[in-house]
């Protein structure tokens, strides 16, 4: 069976430093897979390669029967692969509405874009209340919801989320996890989830790849990894710290 999405032994170098080596990941349509591992294990570099932000120095990347590793990032978005980058990267001075519209930058059908926006509001009702607020003034959790919404505006078939729980209050992490499951199940979007918060990622994915120093070291069913003490200890750090809220707090949103 051919894979819906696949990286074949890809390698990423920054000058002479090898960041990712021999990484092969594959998934079927409709799956949610997780990519976990400690800081600096090569997760983000892998994603940058998939989305065309960084060129790969060896290997191939395929999506839905097309080879995408030579494509520029805008063609990859057009092909149906959209990423929510680590650290959110909102357009801080633009309104929530304009941020969402940026997500639909390559879509010309205005009516269809409006329809997608309504679906995003159903998923994250909070965004509708904040529509005219400058995105940079929202809390970390709200910004995270907005950038997920922004990515959905492109109507992706494969959604890649890089550390969606980073810098987000625990209450929001639950909401975001629910939203990801919802997107996968109801919107029929395949998902690649990258997390340091491995517990959350393993709970909502079917399979997971554990990365360490630029390589995939373990590749198994998520529920089995969740129970595997050795994996937890060896690659993910002894204890899983509860995530801290480094967001700006809710009151910040009341500035406007």
């Amino acid at each position, binding site marked *: 069976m051919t894979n819906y999405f696949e990286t074949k032994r890809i390698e990423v170098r920054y000058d002479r430093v090898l960041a990712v080596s021999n990484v092969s990941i594959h998934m079927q349509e409709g799956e949610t897979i997780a990519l976990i591992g400690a800081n600096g294990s090569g997760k983000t570099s892998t994603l940058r390669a998939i989305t065309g932000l960084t060129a790969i120095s060896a290997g191939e990347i395929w999506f839905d029967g097309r080879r995408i590793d030579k494509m520029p990032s*805008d063609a990859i*978005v057009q092909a149906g692969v*959209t*990423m929510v*980058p680590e650290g959110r990267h909102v357009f801080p001075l633009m309104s929530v509405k304009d941020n969402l519209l940026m997500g639909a930058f390559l879509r010309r059908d205005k009516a269809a874009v409006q329809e997608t926006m309504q679906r995003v509001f159903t998923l994250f009702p909070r965004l509708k209340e904040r529509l005219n607020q400058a995105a940079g003034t929202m809390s970390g959790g709200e910004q995270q919801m907005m950038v997920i919404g922004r990515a959905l505006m492109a109507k992706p078939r494969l959604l890649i989320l890089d550390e969606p729980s980073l810098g987000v209050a625990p209450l929001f992490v639950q909401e975001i996890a629910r939203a990801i499951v919802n997107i996968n199940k109801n919107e029929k979007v395949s998902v690649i989830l990258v997390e340091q918060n491995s517990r959350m990622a393993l709970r909502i994915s079917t399979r997971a790849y554990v990365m360490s120093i630029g390589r995939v070291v373990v590749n198994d069913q998520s529920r089995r990894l969740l129970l595997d003490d050795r994996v937890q200890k060896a690659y993910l750090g002894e204890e899983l710290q509860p995530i801290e809220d480094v967001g700006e707090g809710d009151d910040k949103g009341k500035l406007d």
Partner: protein
Amino acid sequence: MGQVLINGLYSGVQYALIALGLTLIFSLMNVMNFAHGQLYVLGGFVTYYVYGVLGLPFVVALLAAGITLAVVGLLFDILFFRKVLARSARDESTMLLATGTALLLDSLFIIFFGEKHRGVPTVISGVMRISNNIFLPYSRVLIIIISVAVIVFFILFMKYTRCGRGLRAMAQDREAAKLMGVNVDRYSMFGWALAAMLAGLAGAMLVSVSGVNSGLGTWLSIKAFIMVMIGGAGVISGAIIGGLMLGILESFGSSFLPGNQYLAIFIALIIFLAIRPRGLLGRQ
């Protein structure tokens, strides 16, 4: 007093056009374009030839200046800035490149246009009488109207069109813009064309009143930087306010401290920047 203010506003709206172009390039590309004044001078010369020498209507000259400069802006990006930015992200590299480009243009102007100060016949004659002692020639009224129209058009374009949204997104977060599908190379080119076009239109209008000569470029680049420093770099409203303020300061300076107006402006600027280094509306 009213006359001085009116004169200041007249220069100010044109300055705002120049400052807009400079701030656009700065926010999109993080490039300090020291050759921006030269683009303005080129716009002036295009108008001189099309309107003054060939005798075609002023509107045609205005369009010719805008289009020529848009093309020059494109070439700036393709031939110079894109190549250097691809190799070096350091600010000094593009600053040196911009300075070199300014010198190149200055020399080309001397070779092709000569050293003479060139003027053109007035576009409209007559003087508008605003009150008993405030007068404004119609040629200047026309320039104010065109400048304001271009500024309004530019703001609406940036705010409400898909293309403007793409440019704003790119200025705020280049990588995120890429992830949304913005072709940043194409939009950089477009940004350069737009910025150069604004400078060219301003130059075209200036020549119709004050004339133009090959040596004006550097001085205008410096003025443009003063405006952007007053208003705050990378902010559209800052560029407009900076332009208007410099126009008014200049006008008051030349009537109260004739000959020394820029001495006063520079001293004031140094004190102002010591207190507020990011300018009136600048960020962070």
